[in-house]
């Protein structure tokens, strides 16, 4: 889990990471980057960076370029096995990964000519740092960040799995890339039924007290104050045991529900650089006097230093009562006001529960929250081993301020969902008929002797967040799409948008704020879209989701985003579900013309130009293709009966040749292709190779110039000639459009910001068109935008967009969520899609 989010906001003088591939001793190639400082030419020290679960080495490059290189450090970062562009299987910091670390160390030392090498890893990468230290990799300094020292106790404290979190983590790396041994452990963890494999797995990836004592490498531990995956105890265990110089920084960083404010990063990484300066370069900077540092929450730029583990006191309160709960939804809710305060939790808090008559109720989960807050302070769970008795639940060690006078609420149930539907920490429920009687309960809260965070913390606990993704200098947007995988042809949709934002940023941004566009790779898998979108919103704290690719993918996260009132803007889809359900989903706005409307245009055209046509239709058998087909029939009207054959295909089909054969055999003389580019190419080529020469119509999604280029290369130069489609974007390859201002701007941006990418790909210009609309909406949302004002602006668009063909506009209203309402017919002639006549209205339904 890439918990710490970094903005790509390097300075003009920032060092540039060099991409390279390193081959390990077993032949496995790792994708890496090497960042060298501008000066000195020969760095005197270097740092190896390790990314988090599901991440990639590029996640770490901002640390290299913004913090390490300016301080004169070389940095090496690699995709872990099974991650990013690296080969191999994901081994969760297993022995093979440790061997990789050793080999990377050797290569890096030889490359930069020094053994003064440190290690810095985040989350999974922090585990890699610990395991490497235990294995004796001779790092001279280490900074493990928000990670574990005991994996089993982190994932399944007291033998009860944080099942929801485990499931989430498991989804961050495709199972096809897992080491098979991990799969068994993960399965056991998700149910807590059998932790044998997980125990063995953890043992090989955790540090015993004796092992920690043997580590003498100077180590700066960084842990999150409020992190439900790796709590403070994980770092404290190491801090108490390490045999060498050590310091502990507890910050507002980490996994859920940490805030990860970007403003804290200079403090955190500044401390890391000082640590490396002291122990890699020998610079006497006093950092060795640092012991424990507690950053205030919410981050206000202040920290409190301690000479050791901060002193705590215990506050014990009873929560009396007797309640019988049944099934998954059964819960006990008890509240109590703690005297004194404000308090700040720290250390081992427990909930002791007297229970009886447990029938199949085999485990109990406790969640502690401040009344009125949806974000809990902490949680924990344990198995119930007898029908009656006393169960002690150890709460995760979280450092959270409890405002004076506020009530604490304790929830007891079989899942954490009892506290909030969004609290998916523990999700394994008991059977519907399971029951237990909960008696007197005691909460023993460990708190700092003196709370240090300011009262502002209470605002966050009360759920009164500042506008996420918005700072004085930045607007952070998020998006998902297939950056890799079989559908990565859509990647330019995202890179084109980012290039336009770069162009705008270079001109001052929007009201002085630079747009940061964080893009996550979902590999065109809606399951991953959900995970990656949730990460963008919950961890990265984006202001809005923008320009995510795919209809099914957008629909998969629509409910979730709308429930949280997160704008989901300019979805690359013309599906009716996106464009017409705005009453139910007001926070989701599409961008493409209506699919039904586009189909209707072709239907009307065929009815007019080929009234006796016998029509065969190839369509993608999902929402997208079916809506185009529905529109075609609507446009054909009474001639819809002239459709002699329809053939659907699934995205996973290898090819569509059998469908094309069936359409030809039907006697059709008009071929309508409602297919994505790959299948459209196969359709054109297949028809030509079968000697079938029908009138051809193809959906606008598949008129990238490369489509016909490939068609003609495979089936002859005349193939596709005369085919009809519709277009709303400029085609930068068409000589008749090269003089337009939109194409000139597009080529200028491509040359400046995407010099290595292919300017012929229309998807780039689509991405820029979407980004132009987004910038327009942000401007209209005002100098101090909110998510609500952004939505309002996005639903009151009326813009001339330079990347659209002349005469077309983007217009929206609260009742019109299809921004592009007119389009041109185009015909493929003389090697290009040429615009025909005047723009046509695209019916919205």
């Amino acid at each position, binding site marked *: 889990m890439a918990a710490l989010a970094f903005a790509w906001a390097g300075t003009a003088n920032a060092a540039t990471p*060099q*991409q*390279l*591939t*390193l*081959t*390990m*001793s077993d*032949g496995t*190639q790792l994708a890496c980057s*090497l960042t060298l400082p501008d000066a000195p030419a020969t760095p005197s020290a270097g740092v190896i960076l390790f990314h988090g679960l599901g991440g990639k080495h590029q996640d770490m490059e901002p640390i290299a370029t913004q913090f390490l290189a300016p301080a004169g450090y070389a940095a090496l970062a690699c995709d872990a096995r099974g991650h990013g562009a690296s*080969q191999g299987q994901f081994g969760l910091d297993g022995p093979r990964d440790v061997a990789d670390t050793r080999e990377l160390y050797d290569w890096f030392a030889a*490359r930069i000519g020094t053994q003064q090498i440190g290690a810095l890893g985040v989350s999974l990468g922090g585990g890699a740092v610990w395991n490497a230290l235990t294995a004796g990799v001779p790092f001279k300094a280490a900074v493990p960040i928000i990670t574990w020292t005991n994996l089993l106790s982190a994932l399944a404290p007291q033998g009860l799995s944080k099942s929801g979190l485990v499931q989430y983590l498991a989804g961050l790396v495709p199972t096809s890339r897992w080491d098979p041994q991990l799969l068994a452990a993960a399965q056991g963890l998700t149910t807590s039924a059998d932790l044998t494999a997980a125990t063995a797995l953890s043992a090989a990836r955790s540090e015993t007290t004796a092992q920690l004592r043997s580590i003498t490498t100077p180590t700066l531990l960084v842990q999150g104050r409020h992190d439900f995956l790796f709590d403070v105890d994980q770092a404290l265990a190491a801090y108490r045991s390490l045999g060498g110089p050590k310091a502990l920084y507890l910050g507002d960083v980490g996994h859920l529900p940490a805030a990860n404010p970007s403003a804290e990063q200079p403090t955190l990484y500044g401390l890391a650089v000082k640590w490396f300066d002291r122990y890699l370069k020998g610079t006497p900077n006093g950092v060795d006097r640092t012991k424990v540092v507690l950053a205030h929450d919410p981050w206000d730029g202040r920290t409190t230093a301690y000479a050791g583990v901060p002193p705590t006191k215990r506050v014990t309160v009873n929560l009396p009562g007797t309640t019988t709960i049944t099934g998954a939804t059964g819960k006990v809710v008890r509240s109590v006001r703690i005297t004194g305060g404000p308090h700040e939790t720290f250390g081992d808090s427990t909930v002791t529960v007297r229970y009886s008559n447990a029938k199949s109720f085999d485990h109990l989960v406790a969640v502690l929250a401040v009344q009125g807050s949806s974000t809990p302070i902490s949680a924990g769970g344990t198995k119930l081993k007898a029908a009656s008795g006393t169960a002690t639940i150890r709460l995760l060690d979280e450092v959270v301020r409890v405002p004076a006078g506020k009530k604490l609420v304790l929830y007891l149930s079989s899942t954490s969902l009892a506290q909030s539907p969004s609290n998916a920490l523990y999700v394994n429920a008991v059977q519907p008929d399971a029951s237990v009687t909960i008696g007197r309960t005691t909460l023993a809260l460990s708190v700092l002797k003196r709370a240090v965070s300011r009262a502002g913390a209470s605002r966050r606990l009360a759920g009164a967040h500042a506008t996420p993704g918005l700072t004085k200098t930045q607007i952070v947007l998020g998006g998902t799409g297939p950056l890799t995988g*079989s559908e*990565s*042809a859509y*990647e*330019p949709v995202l890179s084109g948008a980012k290039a336009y934002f770069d162009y705008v940023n270079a001109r001052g941004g929007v009201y002085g704020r630079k747009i940061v566009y964080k893009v996550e790779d979902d590999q065109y898998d809606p399951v991953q879209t959900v995970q990656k979108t949730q990460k963008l919103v919950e961890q990265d704290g984006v202001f809005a989701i923008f320009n995510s690719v795919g209809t099914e993918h957008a629909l998969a996260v629509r409910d979730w985003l709308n429930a949280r009132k997160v704008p989901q803007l300019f979805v690359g889809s013309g599906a009716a579900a996106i464009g017409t359900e705005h009453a139910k989903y007001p926070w989701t706005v599409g961008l493409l013309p209506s699919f039904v409307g586009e189909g209707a245009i072709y239907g009307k055209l065929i009815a007019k130009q080929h009234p006796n046509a016998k029509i065969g239709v190839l369509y993608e058998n999902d929402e997208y293709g079916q809506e185009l087909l529905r529109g075609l029939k609507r446009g054909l009207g009474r001639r819809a009966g002239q459709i002699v054959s329809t053939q659907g295909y699934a995205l996973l089909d290898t*090819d569509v040749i059998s469908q094309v054969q069936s359409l030809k055999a039907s006697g059709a003389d008009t071929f309508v292709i409602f297919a994505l*580019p*790959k299948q459209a*190419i*196969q359709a054109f*080529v297949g028809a030509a190779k079968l000697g079938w020469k029908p009138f051809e119509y193809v959906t606008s999604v598949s008129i*990238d110039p*490369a*489509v016909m*280029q*490939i068609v003609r*290369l*495979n089936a002859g130069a005349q193939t596709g000639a005369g085919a009809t489609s519709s277009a709303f974007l400029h085609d930068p390859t068409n000589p008749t459009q090269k003089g337009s201002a939109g194409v000139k701007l597009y080529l200028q941006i491509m040359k400046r910001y995407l010099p*290595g*990418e*292919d300017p*012929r*790909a229309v*998807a*780039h210009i689509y991405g820029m068109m979407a980004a132009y609309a987004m910038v327009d909406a942000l401007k209209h949302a005002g100098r101090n935008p909110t998510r609500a004002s952004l939505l309002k602006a996005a639903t009151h668009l009326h813009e001339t967009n330079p990347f659209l063909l002349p005469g077309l506009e983007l217009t929206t209203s609260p009742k019109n969520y299809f921004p592009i309402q007119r389009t041109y017919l185009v015909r493929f002639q003389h090697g290009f899609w040429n615009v025909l006549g005047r723009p046509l209205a695209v019916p919205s339904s």
Partner: protein
Amino acid sequence: MKRVIAALSVFAALAFAQGAFAANTGSISVTHDPMVLAGSKSTTIHITLPQADDPIAAINIYTPSGYSYTLSQAAGTTIGTVDATAFSHTAGLTLPLSGNVVTANPASFTQQSTQCTGIPTSAAVWVLNLSVAGQTIQLPVYVNPTAGAEQVLGAEKITVCLPPWDVPEALGGAAQGAQVLDVRFTVNGVFTTPNAGSLLRWDTLFTPYTPKTGKANPAGTFEARAFVPLPVILGLHPTYLSKTNTFRLGGQVTEGGLPVPNLTVHISRGVAANRLTQQSSTRTGSSGSYTTAGHLKPRKTTYFRINASMPEHDFAAGCQNPAPATVAPAGCVSAKLSSWSVKSAVVALKVPKAKKHKK
């Protein structure tokens, strides 16, 4: 630890038995623009790899002696263009790929360079950016001086390594099962042609993979040759016949000092050196010579230029004296002569003034 594919392929073949391998028939041709001595700055290398052949692991192109080199371009400099076709075994389609050739910092390619050439820091690295539909495959090309026994093949070596298309991508195979069929890349300002003319031989060694293994098969290494005939000269000698106000053109076409028979020569003419239009054509005879004639209208100084083109073509004698079996166990399989397209200099034919008769 490293599979040094290209290095392994050369001079290591004796260690392998002459095992069974496909009749691989890849070819190469090289041309310059212009086809002149001591000055041409543009070099185009064209490699073809038939679809039926085994997947190719490495291609080593040796430049003949006599060339000079400029490899000092800054990283990121665009030095040329590339066009290629590849067959995607995943999609069942041939894909057109094109883009720029850009120099890279050799220090950024140490691992790839070591794996491909055995040399950690190549003298130069060029990246062929092969794009289609917004997706780009970056194919590094390594340039290094030859050393030791390799020097008999040429002074410099250009090396390309390809992933196998018949092995799953997850096991190191090519993305999309892409089988490169044809690559034509041009680099400008890198090679300067030699001072002395001849048929310049660019030796090339192709090392295939053992099919479906992803392992290089040095025993299958074969040789292909490209011959560059320098210079290409279009002789053009006009003469004027005043009695009939006609001209006669003649000359010889040679490439690398050898006559070019049976070649179509296009003749352009005009009354200004910069306004020539193609008027006629003729063919060279067995000696490479041609003649043609015509009337001059009006009676003015007339300018002539000829141009001719030669497609890339097989050179039957090109595989004589192949590289030894220690170098290319599978023998020399093709030899190609360069394509070229050449224009002559513009030549003026001055029409003498008519003599005035005294009354």
